[in-house]
Structures are given as C-alpha cells and as structure tokens.
C-alpha cells in the first residue's frame, strides 16, 4: 500500500496546492517540502512495499503493480531526495503553481520507477512529460523549447506504447518488470526491442537524439531542471536495464555495438561541446549528455561489474547534477545571469556558495572520494573486463575533458575579478544551505562507501547476460 501512497500522495498534494491561496508561496513551499520529505521517509522505511491490482485480463493480463526493484529503489530514493531539496530551494515567480507542478512530476516519476507492469510503466512514461511541458510553457524562455521537448518525448512514448502492446500480445502478460525469468522470442522481438530502445535513447538522451535536451535544461527554472536531469533522464537507462537487458538480452547483445558507438559518441560529443558553452546551465546539460553516454556504454558492455558501476553512477550523476543545477540557480537568483562572460569573482564574497559549488564540481569531474569517481572507475573496469579496449580508452578522454570544462565553469563563476555591473548580494542563506546540504552529504557518503548501493543485488538482470559467456 505504501508503494501506491508514495505515488498518489504527491499527485494529490500537487492538485490540492492549487486550492492554497497564493500570498507569497511560503505555505506552498512548506507543504511541498513536507510532502516530498514524507515520500522520502516512506520509501526509505519500506523499500520492499508492493501493491498490486488486476487491471486488464484481455487481450493480455496487466496489473496496477507497484513496488521497487533492486535497481529502482535507489532511483526512487534519489527522486524523493532531489525533489525535497529542489522544492526547498525554489525561488521562482508564481511559486505555488511551480511547486504544484514539481509535486505532480514527483508523483508521475514515482509511478514510473515503481511500476512493475509495462502498462503502468507506459502510463507514467507519458504522464511525466506533462508537468515539464507546463513548466516550460509557463516559466520557460522560448516556446519552441516546450514543443521540442514534448514532441520528441511523446514520439518516444508512442513507440514505447506500440512495443508494450506487442509485448503483451506476445507474452500474454505485461506484469513482468523485475522478473528475471521472462524472455520473449519470435519474429516480432526485433521490432519490440526497437520500439523500446527508441524511447529509451530519446529520453536518456544519446547523440544524435539529444537536440531537445540542452534548450530544455537551460530554459527551465533550476529546481525543476535539477529533478529532470537527475532523475527523469535515468528513465531510459532504467528501462534499458529492466526491460531491454532483462527480457531481450539477445537483441541488446546483437546491437550492443551500435549502443557502444552511440554511448562513446555521446561521451565525446557532450564533453567537447561543454567546453565551448557560455551558458552555465548548458555546460552542465552537455556534461550530462557525456556522463549518461558512459552509462549507456556500461549497460551495452553486458558486464556485471559495469552494471553495478552503472547503478552507482546513475545515483552519483543524479546527485551532482541536481546540486550543480541548484547552485547555478542560486547564482542566477543573485546575479540575474548565467553567462560565464558576465559572471566572475563570486567566490571571494560568497564563500559558502563557493564551497558548495566546489564539492559539486569536484564530484562531477570524478575526484576520488566523491560519488562520481566511484561510478566511473567501476564502469571502466567492467567495460575493460568485457573486452572493449578501445571504447575504454576513448571513454578516458572525456573524463579528462570533464576536469577542463568543470574547472572552467567554476573559475569563470567564482574566481577572477568581480564583474563591475553585476551586483554582488548575500551569501548562501541558511535555507538555501539546508536545501543543498543533503545532496552534497550524499555525494560524500556514496563516494566513500559505494558498496552500499549494491546491497540489493542487481544480479538477476546480468545473470541472463553473464550465463551466456559475456567475457570474450
């Protein structure tokens, strides 16, 4: 029942917020934070809660079945944590409506990651587009961005829908997520796989399907882009693991070459483009493209070690990208700009802001002791062990480049001479500090003890892979 409550509570609260009189949004902020924190506590308290109810019995059986899998439990906790922090950090006009959309987004993504049924998965896959679309329409900078986001991702959602329907017809049930004993065979499977893969690759995104992502990330207010980049972008990777790898391993293996190429190209392309950007949010957006490419590479390598690394890195990337976007949001609140050309010298007068930024940047560039490193090193080890030598070598290049663009981002914002016409206001307030602290703390904790993330064994998904002789 808890599994259902953590989905419905944020959604109900989101709609209920519209009834709150909108004075200055403080009430909605308190309610929003409380609801998100409550979902975090409930998920953490009962990670194995399940809920199931029969939905369809014809033409295939489907259930409204929710409950965390070993992979999704960490993403769900990440989601609840990021949403809590982001709502606490929210400082946008028409705050009540914004927080309501944040809660709706949390509920929809809770449903997606807790779904144990492909139909429910598809339902929430589409549903989670709506809050982002509304926020882009209302708070975004360009209308075209909202359309690009919506149409791209809806196209992915439709192929997912067709693939789900075909899967149901072929297997007779869609109540399969989290099971390791389901394998489908037949002439249809390549098409089903293609339908799922298209949706997942758009959502992640990988090059060349990424063009919706940089404008979306730079247009959206920071609190929401923190959640979207840290959690929504993981939906595709999660799907690749629990659907692609678990049910159609032969096809994922058959096309693993293509996935590795896409992953490596995204890695390199994202890193090189991040070097050239002037907008702080776009730098983080392109760095996300690069980092998520590494996870695609890890999944496509079919190596159990790389898979464990992928889970660690999914969480790590979620934490540091959320922290980076929130901090860039703070900077933008103060200076009114995200342009590196117009920023500078904030560190001297905002030491606490600079300190928080340092931790996030160092985690993003993969400093040992922080979460990013733990994920990267395990993934690279696994990919190398699987026999992919050249991809491993190519993947090292963007890791070096990450230092370059992340340090450039830090230096241009925090160091150097203060730009004259930019007013320097207050340092991090205690509320803003509390909003960012859990993310930074988690970065350190995961960094020093990444093993904790593999306490729920993702083995069932890699067993299918490893039992067929992965090591080449």
């Amino acid at each position: 029942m808890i599994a259902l409550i953590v989905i419905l509570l944020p959604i109900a609260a989101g709609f209920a917020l519209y009834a709150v009189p909108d004075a200055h949004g403080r009430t909605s902020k308190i309610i929003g934070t409380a609801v998100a924190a409550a979902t975090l506590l409930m998920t953490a308290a009962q990670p194995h809660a399940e809920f199931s109810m029969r939905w369809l019995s014809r033409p295939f059986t489907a259930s409204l079945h929710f409950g965390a899998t070993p992979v999704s439990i960490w993403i769900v906790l990440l989601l609840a944590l990021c949403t809590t922090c982001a709502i606490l950090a929210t400082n946008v006009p028409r705050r009540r409506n914004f927080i309501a959309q944040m809660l709706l987004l949390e509920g929809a993504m809770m449903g997606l990651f807790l779904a144990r049924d492909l139909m429910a998965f598809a339902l929430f896959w589409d549903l989670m587009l709506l809050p982002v679309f509304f926020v882009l329409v209302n708070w975004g900078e360009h209308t075209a961005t909202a359309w690009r986001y919506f149409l791209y991702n809806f196209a992915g959602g439709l192929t997912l829908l067709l693939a789900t329907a075909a899967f149901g017809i072929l297997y007779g049930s869609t109540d399969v997520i989290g099971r390791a004993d389901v394998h489908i065979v037949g002439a249809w499977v390549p098409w089903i796989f293609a339908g799922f893969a298209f949706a997942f690759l758009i959502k992640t995104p990988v090059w060349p399907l990424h063009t919706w992502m940089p404008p979306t990330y730079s247009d959206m207010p920071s609190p929401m882009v923190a959640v979207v980049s840290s959690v929504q972008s993981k939906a595709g990777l999660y799907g690749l693991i629990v659907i692609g790898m678990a049910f159609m391993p032969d096809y994922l293996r058959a096309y693993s070459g293509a996935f590795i190429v896409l992953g490596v190209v995204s890695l390199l392309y994202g890193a090189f483009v991040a070097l050239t950007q002037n907008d702080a949010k776009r730098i983080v957006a392109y760095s996300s493209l690069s980092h998520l490419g590494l996870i695609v590479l890890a999944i496509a390598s079919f190596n159990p070690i790389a898979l464990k690394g992928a889970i660690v890195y999914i969480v790590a990337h979620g934490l540091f990208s959320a922290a980076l976007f929130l901090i860039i949001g703070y900077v933008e609140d103060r200076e009114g700009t995200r342009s590196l050309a117009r920023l500078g010298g904030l560190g001297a007068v905002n030491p606490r802001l600079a300190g928080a930024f340092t931790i996030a940047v160092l985690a993003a560039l993969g400093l040992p002791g922080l979460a990013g490193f733990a994920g990267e090193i395990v993934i690279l080890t696994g990919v190398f062990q699987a026999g992919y030598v050249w991809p491993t070598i190519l993947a090292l290049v963007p890791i070096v480049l990450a230092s370059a663009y992340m340090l450039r981002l830090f230096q241009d914002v925090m160091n150097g001479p203060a730009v004259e016409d930019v007013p320097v206001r207050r340092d991090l307030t205690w509320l803003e500090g509390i909003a960012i602290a859990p993310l930074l703390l988690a970065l350190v904790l995961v960094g020093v003890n990444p093993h904790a993330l593999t306490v729920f064994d993702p083995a069932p998904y890699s067993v299918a892979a490893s039992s067929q002789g992965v090591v080449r």
Partner: protein
Amino acid sequence: MNVIVTNADYMALAPVAVVAVTALAVLLADLLSRTYAQRYVAIGIGLAGLAIASVVAARGYGVDYAAFGGAFVLGGFSVVFEEIVIVAALGSLVLYGAIGREERMGGAVALMLWSACGAMLMAGAANLMMIFLGLELLSLALYCLCGLADRPTSRESALKYLILSSVASGFMLYGMALLFGASGSVQLSALTNAALLSNPLFWMGSGFFLVGIAFKLSLVPFHTWSPDVYEGAPLPVTAFMSVATKAGALAVFGRFIYAALPSGAADRLLLPVWIIAAISMIAGNVGMLAQHDLKRLLAYSGIAQVGYILTAFAGGTAIGMRYAIYYLAAYAFMNLGAFAVAATLSEDEEEGSRLANYRGLGRRHPLAAAFMTIFMLALAGFPPTAGFLGKILILSSSVNAGYAWMGGVLIVGTAISLYAYAKVIRAMYARDENVQVSDTHPFVPLAWISAAACFVALIVMTFYPLTPSNVLPLVR
C-alpha cells in the same frame, strides 16, 4: 415471406419508441409551458426521456432476439451502440441550456431526439431497408438542425450537408439495390452465402455500400464535408453529430463486416477500407494542425479518430470489435466534454469555438481550462485517460490480427496530432499579458455537470476498462 409480429418484436423497439414519444411530448409541452420556462421544460423532458430509454435499452443486454423477421436484432451489440447514441444525445441536449438566445427550443430538442432514434435504429438494423430507414431518419433531422442557427454559416452548413449526404445516401442505396439483386434478399444474413463470391453484383454492391459508409464516417477522400458542416452547425448539433453519426455508421459497418460477408470476402473487400482508414489517420491529424476553430479542429480530429477505431476493426477479430466499442465510448466522452467546455464559454454561439478565445483561460477560469486540458489530452491518447488505454488496446488488437502496419500508422498519426491538441493547451496556460477576450459566460450548471461527468467517465474507464464481452455472438 410472412412475418409474424409479436409483442416481443415491439418490445425490442421500446428504447427507440421511448425516445420518439419523448420528442412528441417535448413538442406538446413546448406549446403549453410559459415563455420563460420553455427552454428548460424542453431540455428537462428530453433528458428524462433519454434516461428512461437508456434504462429500457439496458434490459436488452443479455438478450439475443431477432425482431420483425430479422430486420432488427436485439442484443449486446445493438444495446451498446444504442447507449452510446443516448449518451451523445444527453450530452448534446444539455448544451442547449448553455448557449443561444431565449427562444423556442422545443423544435430543436425534438429533432435531435428523432435523429437519435435514427441512429438507434441503425444500431440494431440487420436488414438493408432498416439500415436505410435509420440512416435517413438520422440525416433528415440533422439537415434541419444544422440550419437552425440564425447565421449564414449555419445555412451553408445545412445545405452542404444535405447535398453531400444525399449523394452518399444515393451511393449506399444503389449498393443496397445491387446487393439485393445479388442475394435476392434484403437480410444482411443472406449475404453470407458463399455463392456470392463469384457474383460481380455482390462486389459492386458491397463497394457502393462501403463508399456510403465511408462518407458517413467522413473517411478520406470522402471527408471534405465534415469540417465545414461542423463549423457552421450550432454547437449542440455539432456535438451530437460528431458522436451519433459515427456510432450509427460504425454499428452498420461492424455488423456488415462481422456478420454479413461470405467467408473469404473480408480480406479482399475490406483492404481498401483499411487503406483509407490509414490515410485518414494521417490526413485528419495533419489537417488539424492548421485550424483556428475548435469545431473544425474536432472535425479533423474525428476523421483521424474514426481511423483509429477502424484499426481495431481490422482483421475482424472478436476482441478488436470490443476495443472498437471501448474506444468509441471513450471518444464520445472526450468529444462531448470538449464541446461542453466550449459551451460554457459561448456568449453567443460562435464564441466558444474560436481558439483565440482560449488564450489565458487557465487564469480566467482554471476549472474550465483544466477540463479542456483533460479532454484534449484524452483525444491525443495521453494517460491517465481512456484515450491512452484505448490506444494500447487498439494497438494490441492490430498486432494480434496481423495489421500491425495500421498500428504503426496510428502511432505516426498520434504523434502529429499532439501538436494540434497541445496548441489548445498551450494557449490556455501560456503567459500572455495582453489578452483581450471577453469574460466567460455566467454559471451554466448543465454544461458544467456534463463536462464533469465526461471527465469522471474518462478516468474511471481507464482503471476499470469494461469492454462489453458478449457483443460478437449477437451480431447477426
């Protein structure tokens, strides 16, 4: 052929009779009631009559009975379509309470009820004459209804509909004559004779018959009438027409392809229908992109949505028929809901249909905007509405029946349609500081209730997907 008519035969027609008698009662009450009350008396009696008819019709659900020598079949299939027509009439009648000036409504209400009678006859019709009778009753009343508003576009709409629809009826009647010539009987069941396969009259007759149906369903290339007619007709009439004519024509089409074709004919005969359904899915959705008027938008949307429903019919599987009915019911609620919201915005009859008037609605009237959003999303197939589940069910039946290519076209069409539907949503919610639109219409309880009921129905249908199970055996 001697047909012995018993009481049971008349009982089979009871729902239709109740609606027809209600129409007469509306006319009488209209004469007797005072001026200020006329509108609500007419609507009230109409709603009560439809409610009784729906209860009476529901009693026939488990029955399998052929009345009047097989001319009218009572059973699950006809009951489900009758109920959809009744829902369409209910949802459209209430809109008369929301729009228009204080004038005599009795005639319009009565005509709409008679039109509903025609569609209900089509739902149960199992012989060619009964089909034509129902179709003409439906259409004749609609010609008048289309022209009732005091606007040039309304008269244009009525004339266009009259001429083009009559041509289609002519096609259909000619087809029926040829089918009669081929089989020697007006009964649909007589067409299952395998000897007909070698008879050119049968193929020609079926072809003409299907052209007539395609016209009524406004499939490409017989679709050009519907945007103009929908745009000109008064809002309640458009709402009724968009659902009831489709329900009637789909009932006839369903019965024809499931129960009236010799085995082996379906694949060859119906392939052109599936192809034009596929084209309609694309053309309807593309046509929607350029529209600035809600009625035109929904007309193009209807062209595409019929394509979706036919995708479920493709292959002629029992399960496909159930999902077609499920989606048709969902479509009825989406459309009626959207029109109900439009009615709440209508100061005079045109206003609620211009998309420009939806700008900034999210702030002016959040509830209306929220309802409209849900209906637009449902039409686009977004969760958590019945449109989403309906699409999954249609896709699975198309894969199951070996018509996955139609499922693929459906996906492409839906992707195109999202832009058009989301444009309405964006207009309602976008920040737009200099909006100069008149305020919403004062409180119109009936239209609000209708919109809320459609909303609830769409959500409930998603999580309790009741697809009628005993439909197929009852097609004769």
